[in-house]
């Protein structure tokens, strides 16, 4: 899973602030011997690795010192435990949920394919493709082809069970004894729905086809018979050698053989792959570069793992001229990336087409289903029961009627069971005996009543959600100007869930905070700097004389993209002679900051005429640091501000400008950061041949170094070589190698980096809280940091009682939980009354305890406690634990959960929650890719939930009820009529009218209202967050409303049927006139019903509602003007009679009267909060009173 990838929150940068003083005091004690206070913590991590992997490295002093490291160590150990072992159960749960929601970004375990490596003969595609059929480079993102479009699209569409129901009805209608509608007509509704979806799918697929075609027909330079010649992308095969020029897109996954840079470095932008815009470095192996430059035959054999989706790992080795060397992630460039800042590269294709990592990762995660939709299915079941009952009544009636008339059936003028004449005279005519006739009558009534289950509802809901998404995307209040990003709707099925969220699980770094790191403080050799921070420019202004004397060559040759404030005292100190322990420590401290990272400097010569520095230095270069983590960039920038400017980095060396002097350092090896070691180190050879290990530990926190003796260097080099060429367990071997040198370190100092809280976060959290939403923060921070963040974003307040759970064993946790429960009187009931607690409680729990709690049977205890607390803070949690906590709530309550995060470590949580929200932040797009909605800032969440969530919920809730009503009233009307046709399932309405009813006559207004209707303005909703409670109480859609609606439907259908029947009870009215009257009456009625409930009349709404009625009339007139129809001329005849119009008026008024009275009574005497707020908003009475008193509203 994700753990391997820089889990930001495991050790958040804010740790720096808190550990800072501890390091400081430890240093001041002056203990700079081997095994300094830093050592135990480093060693302990190492010893923990040893427990898992046998090490060659001799065991050193394993005494654990109880200094600041003591507590750290415990947490470290257990955290690692939590990741490796403790999370298995959560993993299980995740797997469970994967069945429903496929994880698009889950990586295969790449080590499991080792037995069967893929063999690539470089520049010999024939041999490469001889044995195995590797896929070509043609890609296909489209789902369909012209030939399979119809069957495949239909197959996919029929996954919706309701469609199968309608298909069954169409088939029923084809049976000779049952044909009610014209056979073609019965297909129409289903065909319509299928067609609309098919056209939508087809259009999307056509666009994909087009882009595929463009993509496949692009050309790249491929080595063919000794020369690079253009070849279409789709023709490229594995094993071929391809040359890519600057700014070109890479056509397939390739191992770098050589680049325009002699040292083999290349920069790529991986925007298309993971959304990160910064440049990443890739290297060609030194062994292969001569081959490319000398122009000789390119050859070699690459053994690599089978294609997989992990874009962060690549394991392979290469054999060239008998020599074998490793290839890793840094040697491969992936399809979809772009080459930048490099003239050209040459590479060998290893994966092509569908097997490239980009393509393997492009699977979309299937959609979630909204809560309301699952409730809707429950009500659909009720409708089916009604349907069944009605059919049963008709069938039984038919049976009894036949039984009563069975002797005289052939004498009835309107019933005949035998033929009259012709060849079949006397034979039975479509009469299959009374039981069979009864049965057929049942089936045919299903056909007549089929639209009781509203087929159009599904398509209506889809269209409405599309419209709602349009408005959410377009909302300018959710537009992030700093990143120029609009709100994104990645999932179209769960808009209305946003109105019912009860729990928000939030990540901290990058979600609540900006994740823009700023170097704030430093502790060097026991001395604390950072109290007086000035920007570099101001500092230079004031100390210009000093800088001139201390540094004859300008140190401001480099212009950073962002200003970094510097500490004047430290700055002055760095100007001194390089002598004395303290000064050397400072030197090495900044060297480490500048070298021990993976940051790439991008130089651009800037026209610096306007810059005041140009008076002194002509050659000013702008430098932009691009790296994978924002804090590394911050540290490198800080080092530059203090005069240690990193300006060149290749695979073999780095060049640093130290106060004007160029210092070239050879990089012998680099151990990248991983979450187990939690540190990173580089082995550096200085110009004077001394070798040092520079270590940055706890991610960015502590800086240390160590001199390596020749023997140590040799031992390490040997292990390093072996580890980095191995195909199996490379990462474990590398970890072991690192452990050899990352010990007995000398502490140089510590850094403090600040991450600011995002704008508007406290206000947003406060509003969410008022809205009755519980905000839980899940962070990788340590406890103290988490609490201080909690306070700064107003999550925790001073009047809250804090319950802290940080047990170290199962027993411990059990006791802590039960103590807390006893103390604060938490009851074990699943449903709690709000406000029974005397004091507001806040629960703070750490990942360590969560391991025991989530693993064991303490889940319910935690659940009881956590749900009775106002605030829950989880600190030191691993990604999978985040998902585990979400699951804890999701599986035990009916409440809706929302997870919001920005990093890869939040992906599992985002996918687990009912609604996943991604923040487009500094850490790539993994979270966004996995999310349902994505936005730029945390504070937009307030608007998303309180405004759009509320609207969407109200709209969809009403839409569903209205659609049930609309179809039921029509079906019931048919049902009453059938009772007066001797149960013979005759419909008075023409077939076309029945079909058009839900498709044309009444569909547009529901869609328009579902998209545009608005009960309250966004201002009111934001002013009174408590109005969000309507969603929690399910006010817009619930069983009670369903039944009320159904009773209303019953009344309306009776009025609809009986008014014309009584009016024309003894008259010459014919069936088509009656049908025409009913058709128009029902359409006007349902549209008036809708009009009565519309809360906001726009021009568009008027057009939709009245337009529908007009269109219905037009259709009826047109249908009655076609002579081949039996209903020819009906409407002309009818419209002349005043009775016809009077009966309309009576139907509409009488049918809507109960609903109107109910509505008036309800609104007048039992107004809902929404109703009152709406009145206040519209009437604008006493605007001062409307603003709810904060005291009242927060209590």
């Amino acid at each position, binding site marked *: 899973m994700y753990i391997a990838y820089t889990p930001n929150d495991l050790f958040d940068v804010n740790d720096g602030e808190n550990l800072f003083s501890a390091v400081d005091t430890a240093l001041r004690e002056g203990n700079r011997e081997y095994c300094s206070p830093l050592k135990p913590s480093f060693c302990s991590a190492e010893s923990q690795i040893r427990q898992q992997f046998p090490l060659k490295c001799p065991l050193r002093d394993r005494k654990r010192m109880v200094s600041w490291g003591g507590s750290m160590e415990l947490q470290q150990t257990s955290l690692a435990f939590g990741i490796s072992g403790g999370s298995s159960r959560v993993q299980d749960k995740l797997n469970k949920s994967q069945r429903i929601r496929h994880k698009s970004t889950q990586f295969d375990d790449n080590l499991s394919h080792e037995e069967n490596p893929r063999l690539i003969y470089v520049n010999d595609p024939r041999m490469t493709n001889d044995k195995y059929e590797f896929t070509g480079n043609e890609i296909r993102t489209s789902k369909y082809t012209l030939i399979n479009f119809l069957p495949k699209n239909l197959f996919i569409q029929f996954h919706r069970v309701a469609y199968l129901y309608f298909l069954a009805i169409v088939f029923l209608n084809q049976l*000779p004894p049952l044909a009610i509608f014209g056979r073609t007509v019965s297909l129409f509704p289903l065909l319509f729905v299928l067609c609309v979806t098919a056209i939508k799918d087809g259009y999307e697929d056509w666009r994909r086809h087009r882009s595929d075609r463009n993509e496949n027909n692009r050309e790249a330079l491929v080595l063919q018979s000794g020369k690079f010649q253009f070849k279409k992308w789709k023709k490229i095969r594995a094993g071929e050698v391809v040359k890519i020029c600057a700014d070109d897109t890479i056509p397939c996954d390739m191992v770098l053989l050589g680049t325009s840079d002699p040292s083999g470095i290349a920069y790529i932008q991986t925007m298309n792959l993971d959304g990160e815009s910064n440049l990443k470095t890739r290297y060609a192996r030194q062994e292969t570069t001569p081959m490319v430059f000398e122009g000789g035959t390119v050859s070699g054999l690459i053994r690599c793992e089978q294609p997989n989706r992990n874009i962060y790992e690549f394991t392979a080795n290469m054999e060239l001229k008998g020599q074998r060397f490793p290839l890793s992630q840094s040697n491969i460039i992936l399809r979809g990336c772009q080459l930048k800042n490099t003239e050209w590269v040459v590479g060998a294709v290893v994966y092509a087409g569908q097997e490239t990592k980009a393509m393997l990762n492009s699977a979309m995660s299937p959609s979630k289903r909204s809560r309301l939709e699952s409730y809707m299915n429950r009500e659909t079941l009720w409708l089916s029961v009604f349907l069944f009952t009605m059919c049963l009544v008709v069938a039984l009636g038919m049976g009894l009627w036949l039984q009563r008339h069975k002797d005289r059936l052939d*004498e009835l003028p309107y019933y005949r069971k035998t033929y009259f004449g012709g060849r079949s005279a006397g034979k039975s005519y479509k009469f299959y005996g009374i039981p069979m006739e009864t049965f057929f009558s049942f089936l045919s009534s299903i056909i007549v009543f089929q639209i009781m289950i509203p087929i159009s509802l599904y398509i209506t809901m889809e269209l409405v959600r599309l419209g709602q998404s349009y408005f959410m995307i377009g909302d300018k209040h959710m537009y992030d100007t700093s990143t120029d990003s609009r709100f994104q709707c990645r999932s179209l099925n769960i808009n209305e869930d946003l109105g019912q969220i009860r729990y928000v699980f939030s990540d901290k770094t990058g979600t609540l905070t900006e994740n823009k790191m700023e170097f704030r403080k430093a502790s060097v050799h026991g001395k604390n700097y950072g109290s007086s921070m000035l920007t570099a420019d101001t500092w230079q202004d004031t100390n210009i004389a000093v800088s001139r004397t201390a540094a004859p060559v300008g140190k401001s040759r480099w212009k950073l993209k962002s200003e970094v404030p510097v500490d004047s005292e430290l700055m002055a100190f760095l100007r001194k002679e390089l002598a004395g322990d303290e000064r050397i420590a400072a030197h090495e401290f900044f060297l480490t900051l500048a070298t021990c990272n993976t940051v790439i400097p991008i130089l651009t010569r800037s026209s610096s005429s306007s810059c005041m520095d140009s008076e002194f230095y002509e050659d000013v270069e702008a430098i932009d640091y691009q790296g994978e983590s924002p804090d590394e960039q911050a540290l490198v920038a800080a080092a530059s501000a203090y005069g240690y400017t990193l300006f060149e980095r290749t695979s073999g060396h780095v060049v640093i400008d130290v106060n004007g002097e160029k210092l070239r350092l050879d990089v012998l090896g680099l151990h990248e950061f991983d979450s187990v070691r939690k540190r990173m180190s580089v082995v550096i050879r200085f110009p004077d041949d001394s070798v040092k290990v520079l270590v940055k530990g706890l991610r960015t926190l502590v800086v240390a170094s160590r001199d390596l003796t020749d023997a140590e260097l040799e031992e390490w080099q040997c292990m390093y070589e072996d580890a980095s060429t191995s195909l199996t367990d490379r990462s474990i071997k590398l970890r072991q190698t690192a452990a050899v040198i990352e010990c007995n370190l000398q502490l140089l100092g510590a850094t403090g980096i600040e991450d600011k809280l995002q704008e508007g976060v406290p206000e947003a959290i406060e509003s969410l809280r008022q809205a009755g939403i519980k905000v839980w923060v899940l962070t990788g921070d340590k406890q103290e940091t988490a609490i201080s963040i909690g306070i700064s974003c107003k999550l925790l307040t001073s009047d809250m009682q804090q319950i802290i759970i940080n047990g170290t064993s199962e027993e411990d946790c059990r006791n802590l939980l039960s103590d807390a429960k006893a103390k604060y009187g938490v009851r074990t009931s699943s449903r709690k009354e709000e406000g029974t607690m005397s004091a507001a409680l806040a629960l703070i729990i750490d990942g360590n305890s969560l391991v025991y709690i989530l693993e064991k049977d303490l889940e319910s205890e935690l659940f009881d406690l956590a749900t009775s607390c106002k605030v829950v803070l989880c600190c030191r949690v691993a990604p999978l634990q985040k998902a585990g906590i979400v699951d804890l709530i999701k599986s035990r309550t009916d409440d809706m959960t929302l997870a919001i995060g920005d990093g890869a470590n939040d992906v599992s949580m985002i996918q687990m929650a009912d609604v996943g929200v991604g923040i487009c932040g500094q850490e790539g797009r993994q979270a966004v890719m996995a999310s349902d909605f994505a936005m730029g800032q945390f504070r937009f969440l307030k608007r998303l939930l309180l405004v759009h969530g509320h609207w969407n919920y109200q709209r969809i809730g009403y839409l569903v009820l209205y659609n049930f009503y609309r179809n039921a009233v029509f079906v019931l009307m048919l049902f009453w009529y059938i009772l007066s046709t001797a149960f013979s399932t005759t419909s008075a309405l023409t077939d076309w009218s029945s079909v058009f009813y839900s498709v044309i006559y009444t569909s547009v207004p529901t869609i328009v209202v579902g998209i545009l209707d608005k009960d309250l303005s966004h201002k009111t909703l934001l002013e009174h967050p408590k109005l969000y409670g309507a969603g929690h109480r399910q006010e817009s859609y619930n069983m009670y409303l369903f039944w009320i609606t159904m009773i209303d439907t019953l009344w309306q259908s009776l009025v609809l049927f009986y008014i014309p029947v009584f009016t024309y009870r003894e*008259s010459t009215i014919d069936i088509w006139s009656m049908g025409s009257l009913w058709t128009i009456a029902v359409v006007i009625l349902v549209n008036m019903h809708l009009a009565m409930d519309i809360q906001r009349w726009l021009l568009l709404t008027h057009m939709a509602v009245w337009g529908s009625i007009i269109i219905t009339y037009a259709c009826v007139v047109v249908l009655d003007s076609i002579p081949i129809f039996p209903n020819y001329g009906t409407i002309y005849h009818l419209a002349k009679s005043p009775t016809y119009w009077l009966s309309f008026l009576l139907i509409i008024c009488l049918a809507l009267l109960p609903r109107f009275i109910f509505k008036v009574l309800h609104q007048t005497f039992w107004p809902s909060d929404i109703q009152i707020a709406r009145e206040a908003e519209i009437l604008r009475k006493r605007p001062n009173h409307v603003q709810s008193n904060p005291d009242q509203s927060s209590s």
Partner: protein
Amino acid sequence: MSLLVVTSNSRFTQQELPACKPILTPGWVITAFIFIGIIFIPIGLASLFASENVVEIADRYDEDCVPSIYASDMLAYIRSSQTNKSCTKSLTVPKKMKNPIYVYYQLDNFYQNHRRLWEEVEFSLLLVSVFPDMSKSRSDKQLRSKANEFETKDCSPEATFLVSNKEMPIVPCGLIAWSMFNDTYGFSLNDKAIQVNKKGIAWKSDREYKFGSDVYPKKFQSGVIGGAKLDENIPLSQQEDLIVWMRTAALPKFRKLYGKIEVDLEANEKITVVIQNNYNTYSFGGKKTLILSTTSWIGGKNDFLGIAYLTFGGLCLFMVISFIFLYVVRPRPLGDPSYLSWNRNPDGLFAQLRCRFLSDILCAMEEF
């Protein structure tokens, strides 16, 4: 979503278009009810008045016209070709009837809307035609033009007859035509025959477009006799009885126009009707009634609309009074935030608001 691209910040995309937001204020509700009441009551009165002015004579004759010896077995009487079917009845005109006086026959318990009359027969392929022929148990095509004489597939079980082993079409085919009503009425006043005009009783559109002037009845009622026979020398477009009969009734109790009497009938005049009682309604217990009626703008005699309108109008006025009463008893300032659920004090002034409907009425009664 690749489909959705929003680029503008217009009032539309921000959902801020000018809109009318109706709200049910007490004034609005009362006005609406008064308005409806004021409209409905006059309409009701007018309808009732119109209906009162219609003079209608109804006479059920199916049982009376069966001689008493057959009273126990009416079926035998009607089936037999030997029995005398004519029957004389006397009707008294209650009020002066102005011409035209419409003569209807009314059938009861007769399901002309039965699906058996509507069924399709042939298993047509789905794609045979985009417009499926909607007529059932009748062939509108055949009725319309001679060229479609053989279009009888929708007419079973009464579609063809065998002529020297060849299936020939029956015109008009199908059960509906076959079951055509065949009682006849002859009216006389003081032994002087009253002319019944049978022209123009069918819809003009039916005569002109649905029944062809070149289509002549053929082999109609040749096998099992169901009802009336047709003169084979008159084209269908002039067979108005058939056209009237073919316009299927909506309900099991229906009237069909028999003809028009174009003279005035004075009050208390006695009309003699000679009825040829041919049609068999006895097999299913159907009733036959002869109706003579004048007409008004509202149609025939029907008090329903008038009464319904009056009642509804009255109800609305009653609503006005009750709502005024309720608003006085329990006024609620609109938009008063103190009524918001989170502002309500459970023990305070608004506690009464919480009591539900029944107890609320009790509260109101206590206050009085």
